[in-house]
């Protein structure tokens, strides 16, 4: 069983501090729902755990079991069993989906996968995700609809078999049937791996087992609870947390961030 430990993490994007001393611990037999208003650090946390170089760790550590992975490269973290299902999966021109999956799979193994084994894995994953097998020959996410991209993320998870899976708004862009397909797969996979799931909608959380719900506000853990916390937030929003003493920091540079916008995406706009 793998254990991920985030210890007093301070993270900045373009010199703007987004995570302000965040600590979370969870293991590969748990599923955590990560909630919080827009622009409060959920995506930043996931991207930082995966090692995105656009996010600078000012202090704190990330441990996977007994290994400090704070300074490891992105590919090394993947090889140790971390997986991030992206909010905006990249379209990579000319890179064939199937060739890419084979290279990615081989990167996790000592011996290259045999053609037969690879075919079996692919066939199984495509069937589970209800994706036509022909899409394996298309370019990676190129011309995919929003929903197809998200399903393709889960498909990659099935192929790569990670121990800790982080899903960043995997349900956005999915229609009702697709949410059900994704939820069914997550439910089936929860016995094999841990999930850290960011979503703004209770629908996905309703369909899967949730061990813990964590609310992030202003880059820190503001509230921890069980599945009932998700229900309360779904019905009442986040305002009630103020009465419990949670501080929602008013930040001028965040004024441009509206619902549906990610704070880090805004912050990165000027960086590229």
């Amino acid at each position, binding site marked *: 069983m793998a254990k991920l430990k985030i210890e007093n993490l301070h993270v900045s994007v373009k010199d703007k501090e987004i995570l302000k001393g965040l600590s979370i611990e969870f293991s590969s037999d748990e599923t955590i729902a990560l909630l919080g208003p827009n622009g409060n650090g959920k995506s930043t946390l996931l991207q930082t755990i995966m090692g995105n170089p656009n996010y600078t760790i000012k202090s704190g550590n990330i441990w996977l079991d007994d290994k400090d992975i704070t300074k490891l*490269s992105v590919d090394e*973290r*993947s090889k140790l069993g971390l997986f*991030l299902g992206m909010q905006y999966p990249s379209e990579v021109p*000319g*890179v064939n989906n199937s*060739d890419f999956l084979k290279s*990615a799979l081989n990167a996790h193994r000592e011996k290259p996968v045999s053609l037969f084994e690879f075919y079996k894995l692919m066939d199984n994953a495509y069937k589970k995700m209800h994706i036509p097998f022909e899409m394996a020959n298309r370019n990676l996410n190129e011309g995919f609809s929003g929903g197809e991209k998200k399903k393709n993320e889960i498909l990659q998870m099935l192929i790569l078999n990670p121990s800790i899976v982080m899903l960043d708004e995997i349900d956005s862009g999915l229609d009702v049937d697709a949410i059900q397909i994704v939820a069914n797969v997550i439910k089936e996979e929860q016995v094999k791996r841990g999930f850290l799931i960011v979503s703004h909608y209770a629908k996905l959380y309703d369909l899967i087992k949730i061990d813990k719900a964590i609310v992030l506000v202003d880059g820190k853990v503001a509230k921890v609870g069980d599945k009932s916390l998700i229900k309360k937030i779904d019905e009442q929003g986040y305002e009630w947390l103020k009465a419990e003493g949670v501080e929602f920091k008013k930040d001028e540079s965040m004024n441009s961030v509206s619902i549906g916008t990610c704070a880090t995406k805004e912050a990165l706009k000027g960086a*590229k």
Partner: protein
Amino acid sequence: MSCQCIKLKERESRVLEYTDFSDLNIELLEGSKLVLKLANFSENSDIKIYGKIRKFAEISIVFADFSKNFTKISSQIDLVEEGAKCDWHLATLSNKKDSKVFDISFKHLVGKTTSIMDNYGVARDESKIVFSGVSHITEGAKESNAKQNAKIIVFDKNSQGVASPILKIDENEVQASHGAVVGQLNSDHMFYLMSRGLTYDEARMIITLGYLKPVSTQFSEKTQSMIENAIKEAM
């Protein structure tokens, strides 16, 4: 090296593929069609291509350049009669201290003629790629169509890319478009690929293969494998 002449008779169709070639002089007579696939693996190449395309004749040139050191490719295609068409697709990869110049020009001498140019390049290490040339629609060449598209990815701090093809239009009733981009490797693509376990070098390789794929896949299997080897060697 001597000049090689390719002449197609009226309404003749041919597909030719060369991995070893010198200067080329091409003439396509009325209604003929030529697909010319050129893969250049030589060292210090200075190659000139001249083409004269006649009535409703069409030439498609697919050029894969994996040459080394100094490379100068000059191409001048004249569209001399109505309905003449040229498609030009180039992919090139430079590394170490390579210096490569591609001067690709088209002249629309009469109306209803078409030229399409797609140039893709990847420059790494201290190498340099230049895409230049002129698509010229002359006076009176009404209803002609010229498109230019040039893209270069510069991989490293000291790699250079210059994409400056020129459109010269001396007639009003024409369609013309022009796009030139020189940029660095997309950091989001790199993060995405690496998050699936590919190393930095593997991710760069897979992006390069994908970027050059529209041209490399046009060749025979044998040449494709030579191209893949050349890319692996250069990366």
